[in-house]
């Protein structure tokens, strides 16, 4: 192979590595930025933060829905599993808890249609000890985000559900 062909092959190989490397890295990098924003640079880990009503100024995460109220918990399972729970909304409106791994995958989504009395599960890494008889969600990563979404298209509904969601819990199992 002459030198020009070798350089061309090197360029193409490097371009493939650059393309795939960026595509693989972007979800983790963006998730890290989101986790830092939501947790106040790590000050609020394993606890829910309750967002205000979504407006034009909501810039924490792309494409927020103005019809939903959001509460979020940045989780860290490195010291053990968490017990996660959410009470239903007073008007029986839509409520879901969704779990996102560090690569952005939505690994679980539970809602109050399935669990009208409220959602409750243990979030753990594979192999971590968990109590018997409790629903378990296994995370493929130590860190990620749990999101509470509630239907609240008006200011009045938002005020109603804001009270209910304050009972949400995202805490180490040992403390629960």
């Amino acid at each position, binding site marked *: 192979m002459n030198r020009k062909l070798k*350089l061309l092959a090197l360029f193409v190989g490097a371009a493939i590595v650059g393309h795939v490397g960026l*595509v693989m890295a*972007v979800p983790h990098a963006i*998730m890290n930025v989101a986790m830092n924003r939501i947790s106040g640079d790590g000050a609020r880990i394993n606890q829910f933060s309750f967002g205000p009503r979504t407006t*034009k100024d909501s810039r924490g995460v792309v494409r927020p*829905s103005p019809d939903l109220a959001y509460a979020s918990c940045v989780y860290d399972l490195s010291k053990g599993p968490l017990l996660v729970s959410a009470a239903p909304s007073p008007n029986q409106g*839509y409520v879901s808890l*969704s779990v996102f791994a560090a690569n952005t995958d939505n690994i679980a989504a539970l809602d109050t249609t399935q669990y009208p009395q409220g959602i409750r599960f243990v979030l753990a890494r594979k192999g971590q000890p968990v109590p018997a008889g409790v629903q378990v969600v296994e995370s493929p990563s130590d860190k990620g985000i749990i999101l509470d979404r509630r239907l609240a298209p008006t200011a009045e509904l938002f005020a109603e559900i804001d009270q209910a969601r304050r009972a949400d819990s995202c805490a180490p199992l040992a403390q629960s």
Partner: protein
Amino acid sequence: MSGKLVTTGVLIAGLVAGAASGWYTLQRGMVQGEVYSGWSGSKVTGSVDADPWTRARVAVSGLLALNKSQAIYFSRNTDDSGARLREDCRYRVTGGVLTARWWSITVYAADNYLPLNDDDALSFDQTEAQPDGKSEWTGILSPIRPDGQPWASTSKAGNYDITLRLYQPTPQAQADYAAIPMPKVTKLDCGGAA
């Protein structure tokens, strides 16, 4: 120029070109994937089965999207004639019974955030858009508030797109996106012309 320097330069140029092409592919936003009556959606959004490109695209323009068992997302930036949605135009959005527990339609600016207007009308949803005698609902996309109709303001939206969210879609909708009766988007007029 030494041979080693040339080799290093070609290596760096390849890496930069590859990364740039990767970033470019992620900038096409949510309006890509399979198209259903003008609306784009992907069955693997949020899913552990998503390919790396879909996962990265969702991270850029739809972070924390749910998988289809909980919500299905469709987006579009054109009307039913294929013309680009324009901030200064008025559009009528019409649809029938959507196969989900709840739905909404929201306007997003090109930066993937809500438009920076003070209209307090960033979306309309199932609770506002009540069906008429033919089980058909209507909403309006426009920069100026219409009389007595569900409205999503496009004021200061620039090159915007709209997203249809279907929460708790039926099993049939999850299995076959083509069976979902997608809303129509019809241009009424532009620039205030009636």
